[in-house]
């Protein structure tokens, strides 16, 4: 029998060609041509694939490891008009020590607040590894001039933000002014410098998976470090199929440009079970390089409590009363 050509290591995973510069465009038409060249997304197929992955069953040590990883990926968020210094203080405490019963529980990735509360959050978090993320650029609607958006970003940076969550101009995107969307991302990234930039697509307003894929590419071409699903402020937020499409985008982008971009899912993710489903989709779509807080995040508030509760259940074999966990 002839020797088998087994699947080689090279064939197995996502291959990254190594650091290279991002493509640039002289005209909007060139950008448009690139976007048109992206393969379409078949909505029925994408939803079926996500539904199939959602049937994966994580048990025992896998479940425990995944719960810990999910905790480390949380951007603990408060984005209310009613936010106060006190509210941010307690959120930061929760971020540093999510489970009062168990100091072994890792801290979350970041707290996510409005720009005016960044300095306070930074002070409370002190030397802890928890980062401060700020939503900027006239969050959540993005309806302001570029100058105002950039000022918003600068103020957040001055307050000590480690990460900026910007929104794209959905109006410009839906009107087909892709160049404007790209230029804004580039401009914000310039102000950010080395500070991590997450670009919010607001998938609930883009509606179609084809739009999500194109907006993902625009954000990544503009220099995004993360692409993020939603603000959490419109009816439709993150969903498993949307995350799937965005993970395919970062995987393909990494393979064709060498730039590894992360994904943040936000809005409506409340249960540990949902979080684990997202991790399965990450695992089987983009792979191991994205199974880290550096490359995948959950923007959430109540999710954290369910994660620590399920973690206790997994360790003790019984559920602990919800009142044993802090309500923040």
């Amino acid at each position, binding site marked *: *029998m*002839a020797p*088998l*050509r*087994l*699947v080689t*290591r090279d*064939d*197995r*995973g*996502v*291959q*990254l060609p*190594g*650091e290279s510069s991002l493509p640039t465009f002289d005209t909007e038409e060139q950008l448009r041509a690139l976007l048109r060249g992206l*393969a*379409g*997304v*078949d909505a*029925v*197929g*994408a939803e*079926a*694939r996500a539904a199939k992955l959602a*049937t*994966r*069953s*994580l*048990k*025992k*040590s*896998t*479940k425990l*490891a*995944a719960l810990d990883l999910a905790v480390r990926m949380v951007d603990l968020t408060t984005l209310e008009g009613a936010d106060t210094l006190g509210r941010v203080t307690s959120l930061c405490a929760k971020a540093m020590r999510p489970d009062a019963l168990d100091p072994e529980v890792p801290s979350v990735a970041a707290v996510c607040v409005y720009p005016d509360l960044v300095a306070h959050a930074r002070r409370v978090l002190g030397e802890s590894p928890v980062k401060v993320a700020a939503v900027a650029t006239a969050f959540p609607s993005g309806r302001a001039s570029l100058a105002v958006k950039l000022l918003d970003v600068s103020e957040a940076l001055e307050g000590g933000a480690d990460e900026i969550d910007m929104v794209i101009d959905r109006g410009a995107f839906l009107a087909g002014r892709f160049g404007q969307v790209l230029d804004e991302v580039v401009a914000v990234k310039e102000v950010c410098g080395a500070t991590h930039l997450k670009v919010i697509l607001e998938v609930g307003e883009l509606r179609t998976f084809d739009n999500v894929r194109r907006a993902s590419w625009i954000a990544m071409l503009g220099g995004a470090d993360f692409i993020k699903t939603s603000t959490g402020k419109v009816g439709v937020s993150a969903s498993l199929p949307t995350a799937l*499409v965005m993970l*395919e985008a970062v*995987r393909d982008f*990494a393979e064709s440009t*060498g730039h*590894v971009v992360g994904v943040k899912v936000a809005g409506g993710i409340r249960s540990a079970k949902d979080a684990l489903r997202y*991790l*399965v989709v990450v*695992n*089987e*779509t*983009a*792979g*191991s*390089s*994205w*199974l880290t807080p550096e490359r995948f995040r959950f923007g959430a508030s109540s999710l954290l409590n369910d994660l620590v509760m399920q973690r206790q259940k997994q360790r003790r074999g019984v559920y602990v009363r919800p009142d044993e966990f802090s309500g923040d």
Partner: protein
Amino acid sequence: MGDLSDSRLGAMAYDPAPESRAVVAFQDAYGLFIDGAFTNPSSHESFVTTNPATEEVLAHVALASIADVDTAVLAARRAYETTWSKVSGAQRSKYLFRIARLIQERSREFAVAETLDNGKPIRESRDIDVPLAAAHFFYYAGWADKLEFAGFGANPHPLGVAGQIIPWNFPLLMAAWKLAPALAAGNTCVLKPAETTPLTALLLAEVLQQAELPPGVVNIITGDGTTGSALVDHPGVDKIAFTGSTDVGRLIQQRVALSRKHLTLELGGKGANIVFDDAPIDEMIEGIIDGIFFNQGHVCCAGSRLLVQESVADDVLRRLVRRVDQLRVGDPMDKNTDVGAINSAAQLEKITELTAYGEREGATRYTSTCVLPDRGYWFAPTIFADVAQSHRIAREEIFGPVLSVLTFRTPEEAVAKANNTTYGLACGVWSEKGSRTLWVAQRLRAGVIWANTYNRFDPASPFGGVRESGFGREGGRHGLEAYLDVT
């Protein structure tokens, strides 16, 4: 970026998540289900059915002799004449609804039994086989009292006694495909399950008892080829419905040729998935994978040939090979398993033989690096690239987890290659351009064409082949025609 340079897909290992075996209790030995009761075969002969994933014996099953087949057919005839042809359509409908609900109630038990006896992953038996089987009974329950509106005349009559022979790849689902329309149309049945997978049909017999279906309306006789042959030859049978290999189908057609028996055949296939350069690539990859590795490729309509436009062939192949290595092969009872065990040693031998030919004929072989269990019958998912039309692996039905990849340059060439087979069961077309999809679909010689999807089944949709893939339709309104006297 060192640690990021090789992002292993599916690197996070999943701990075993086995479904409980305890939900199903097989008897040590099963008799023949004739006239509403389990009876011993006249010869007292039996055979064993095993779990192909472990080679463990699951149960002893009666071997029906020619005399037993005769008893079963006579019971079906008696039931047809005394009860089933006399009850109203609404009554038949009631029984079918009951059967459907009982399958749903016992779905977990059916799923586990199917996986143990067949080797298919529990995810598939749980999410596809069993729900679809129930759906078929529900669907045809709705037709039973509306036959005069089905388009087959004002007062369509049943044929009488139907002899039904089903394969081992979807044991329960094929039983449902056969029984539901036959009963809805007013026929009585003698069903012969496949030799290697009789257990879910026998569980279904228990369900029929629970549903209080009148004795003799459905008889289930287990056995081997001689049993099936006796059923085909029995003069008391009015209709033969067979699903299985083309070779056996051809024999059956010869045998019934000079009789008054009606015949429908659902036979083999060599389905082509045609991929154009504008296909939705991620969903297409999943569709190709599902098209050939679903149920270990033991699917008559499997997309076992991939015809890919040459301009995107390298990218498609690279993504396919990466995806194949990600398939989780192993214990079918594990809820995370994607590909289970090959159904029998004989089938494994056939797959092994044909794939060896593929290499000898010069195709490039990519085989998953998955670790196969020590016991049981296993075959690692395999893709052959650089396949030519003349290769055996491009022409013969392998009926296993093996994909043959060919290329084309123009839509005309794609159609010509897709049609260059003696079979004609199913094809898939992948393109974002609707006009092209329709242009291609109109020219393909196949009973089923899927667009931007594959292996989708629904009781309302007719299924069946042309040419050496057989004739007659199962499912939908068309499926009734096979069990009604429409001449």
